């Protein structure tokens, strides 16, 4: 039986590539919010030639679910759908993020409440989702968790590790720093259940093939490995 991986932020730049890579080894449930992914899924099939009535294409990359994970009911629905389809969840990979650089801290007093929303989406929601998956799938089966090396992997950012003076990314960076700290606490709390939690902190990888590939390799390594509580910053 193939391991089941739940991926959020699946239609982003990294999500598209990651799902395509992981689909070779995992059964994927890919969550997107506003834009459907461009890889094959239950509503989109790639065909080899002029279409025929009988589908002649390869298996789909992922089973996709549209959801706004800021809503509690959507978290519940995503987990229920994944469980209904596969019966278990082995890995949770959080790619969802608001990656915009809204501006300076000193503008916050006059700004809309983007900071609250960005913090929520980038740091709090991944934890809520992990907690919900834990409650439904992992809490009562530590032995199986250990055998299957179940894990949470959060994609953070180098913005969480260094201060970039020029780009007005204070809140984004702080939200990712919070994600790192929360991931380490999550690792501690999941340890009794033999579930691992890690984060990786890539540089900006948009349209940088080498960096994107390196991030994907790193995630694959984390999924297949045994480490927990790591915040990885090297090699990409």
């Amino acid at each position, binding site marked *: 039986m193939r391991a089941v991986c739940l991926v959020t932020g699946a239609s982003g730049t990294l999500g598209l590539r990651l799902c395509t890579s992981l689909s070779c080894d995992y059964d994927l449930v890919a969550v997107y919010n506003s834009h459907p992914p461009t890889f094959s899924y*239950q*509503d*989109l*099939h*790639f*065909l*080899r*030639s*002029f*279409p*025929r*009535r009988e*589908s002649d*294409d390869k298996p789909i990359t992922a089973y996709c679910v549209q959801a706004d994970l800021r809503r509690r009911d959507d978290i519940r629905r995503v987990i229920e759908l994944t469980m209904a389809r596969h019966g278990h969840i082995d890995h949770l990979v959080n790619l969802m993020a608001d990656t915009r650089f809204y501006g300076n801290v000193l503008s916050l007093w006059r700004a809309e409440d983007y900071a609250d929303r960005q913090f929520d989406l980038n740091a709090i929601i991944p934890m809520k989702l992990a907690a919900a998956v834990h409650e439904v799938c992992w809490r009562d089966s530590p032995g199986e968790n250990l055998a299957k090396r179940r894990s949470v992997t959060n994609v953070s950012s180098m913005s969480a590790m260094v201060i970039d003076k020029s780009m007005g990314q204070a809140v984004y960076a702080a939200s990712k720093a919070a994600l790192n700290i929360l991931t380490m606490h999550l690792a501690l709390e999941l340890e009794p259940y033999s579930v691992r939690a890690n984060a990786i902190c890539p540089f900006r990888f948009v349209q940088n093939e080498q960096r994107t590939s390196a991030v994907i390799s790193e995630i694959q390594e984390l999924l297949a490995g045994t480490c927990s509580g790591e915040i990885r910053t090297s090699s990409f």
Partner: protein
Amino acid sequence: MNPSCRWTQHTRPFLHYRASDLLAEDEYARLARYFVKLLRSFEQDNDSKTRFVRSSARYDARVLGVNEDLASELAPFFSATWIDNIYSLFGYDNIRYVDGALHSSLPGSRTGWIHTDLCSAWFVDEQTTSTLTFPNRSACDYFTGVSKGGSVPVIELKRAAAMIYYLCNDGWEPGDGGETALYDCPFEGTFSPPFLVQPRNNSLLLFECSPHSYHRFISNTRNTRNSIILWIHGTPREISARWPSSTGHGS
């Protein structure tokens, strides 16, 4: 055909197929040249044989109907093989009744109305040696079957599938408009957002005409939007067997 052409099957908002990079480079270039030549000949000479006209007060596109003469220049689309493939794909009896049009929408053309294309289509009932049968618009009205200038035997068919091939839309970018919007229901709203098909050169949209194949043209803001449309037809009996409640007013 282009060996690297990519076909995709989409199930939302209704089953349809798309292809990108459909034709080989030289095939596309030939077709695009021909399309531009027709447009220019209309714009410069107002030649009645190649006249693009507005087909409807509700639709701003300039439209040139396809007949046997034009069809031979529009290969592979109006070839017997292509038509057979479409009939086969949608599982209809291959009666080879087709219609087609070249559409050219000037910048600022209005967004169209949401419709399904599932409608009656009238052909003159005559012996022909052609491989494909096109509507004879000078003898009878395609949408009503009303004879023009004399009594001719006519037969009623229904549109079974529609194809839109996008070409001569060089430099199209998101935000330019001119997409074909697909819908779940006959109106656009919060719970019925448009699924936009971009009019990129050498790409294609293909769908079965059904009671729920809701679609429309979206206003183009920057450039002229060009396309070739093709319909295949089936007998009312066959179409009604598949879509029993269809009213046939989807055009």
